[in-house]
């Protein structure tokens, strides 16, 4: 459904992405792992044109675009098919939870207001915030804000949701509620591309795991392939660092 070919991106002289390929089918939950600075977030941002890639192609269903010189129309079309969940939530501070969710529906997708509100309430119910419709982001905890962020993405009913380290800015005790919501929507068959440092999520939920380092895909496979029998030395080293010492025991 989504195919990325040979994507390159540099910031100044610093080459972040050195030719990454990616392929996602409908219903996949693809998790990208890797150390900081490996280009995971940049890859995600280039897919949604929050950064402009230097080169590369994307095939999105029957839509084919060049990631470097896509037209405004193409960018709009891709954004209609995707939704993005940000590390820092990026909720609209001047809008209530329900307005955050309906904004893209009413303004971006021209859905009638009453329908949008019904969709928005359903999305907020799904993430367990049925009592927070009219709260402003300043009145919500980090975990609640991120759940609104996920509801905002889910409500758009996109072909794929891109998650950029959705739990990295959260207090440890709030991570669980967000991961639970993500697991639930994954189980509903939502196609997801997730950059995360949550190994448990990758192990339990991912249908496909990609390990990136230094701007390239080092290794990819099922979560079992990556976590139990990694082939590349870099992958092994990384897993040793991020997993508990007795991880062999866990598995």
């Amino acid at each position, binding site marked *: 459904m989504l195919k990325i070919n040979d994507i390159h991106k540099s910031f100044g002289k610093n080459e972040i992405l050195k030719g990454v390929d990616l392929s996602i089918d409908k219903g996949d939950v693809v998790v990208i792992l890797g150390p900081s600075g490996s280009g995971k977030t940049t890859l995600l941002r280039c897919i949604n044109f929050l950064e402009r890639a230097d080169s590369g192609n994307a095939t999105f269903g029957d839509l084919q675009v060049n990631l470097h010189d896509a037209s405004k129309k193409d960018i709009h079309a891709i954004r209609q098919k995707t939704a993005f969940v940000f590390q820092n939530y990026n*909720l609209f501070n001047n809008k209530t939870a329900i307005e955050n969710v309906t904004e893209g529906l009413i303004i971006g997708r021209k859905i009638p207001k009453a329908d949008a509100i019904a969709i928005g309430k359903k999305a907020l119910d799904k993430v367990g915030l049925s009592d927070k419709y009219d709260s402003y982001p300043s009145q919500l905890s980090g975990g609640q804000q991120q759940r609104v962020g996920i509801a905002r993405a889910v409500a758009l009913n996109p072909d794929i949701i891109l998650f950029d380290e959705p739990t990295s800015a959260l207090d440890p005790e709030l991570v669980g509620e967000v991961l639970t919501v993500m697991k639930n929507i994954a189980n509903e068959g939502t196609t997801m591309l997730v950059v995360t440092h949550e190994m448990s999520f990758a192990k339990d939920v991912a249908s496909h795991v990609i390990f990136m380092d230094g701007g390239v895909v080092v290794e990819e496979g099922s979560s079992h392939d990556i976590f139990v029998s990694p082939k590349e030395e870099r992958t092994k080293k990384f897993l040793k660092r991020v997993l508990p010492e007795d991880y062999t025991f866990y598995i």
Partner: protein
Amino acid sequence: MSEGLNYTFLIDTFFVALSGVPITLFVTIVALLVALPLGFLLALTRINQVPVLNWFSRIYVSFVRGTPIIIQIFIVYASVPLILSLFFNRYNININVYDINPIWYAFIVFSFSTTAILIEVFRSALSTVNKGQLEAAQSVGLSNFQAYRRIIIPQALVVAMPNICTATVNLIKATSLGYAMSLQEITLKAKVAANAGYNYVEAYIDIFLVYIILCSLVEYGFKLYEKRLRRYKYASA
């Protein structure tokens, strides 16, 4: 020689000064109507580093900010008629430049100077809105224009409001310099009234009072509006 203040004159002149308020407000409002959109657009050119325009606004701001308004008034009041009369002579337009109402010069001077101030006000206010707000808006399918109108400007405005209020109050006070180009505003009217009997102290007290009442009312209005704008920040659960 009478002792103390001439209270009758004090009270009469208060109303004379008050009769200058409409002109003062008219100049203020016209200047704001020009400066608010222009200042906002030029602030955008600075934030987005638009070539040429970005440089223009930077130089413009330092020129206007770096010169006293009274000098700007003298320059406009002296040079614009010269330029106009050259222009009119050349194209045989039969208008006497010295019949032009000085309010037009006031519009020009105060619009220009307020624009410079508001460029900086908007630039600082816009930079307080996190870049993520724009990205989030784009990611849910809003155009840049929609994102600015619905998400970014409402948030920037809250930050800008106290400074816009200051700029407005400063502008009201600055219009008192309009007397230098015989603009019929508060200061000029009271001063003229004082000329006849040398009651300057009374006239200055009246001017003082009129400005402080006017500016307090404007400040109060801004405060109410600001409170409404920022309710999302302190809303109780």
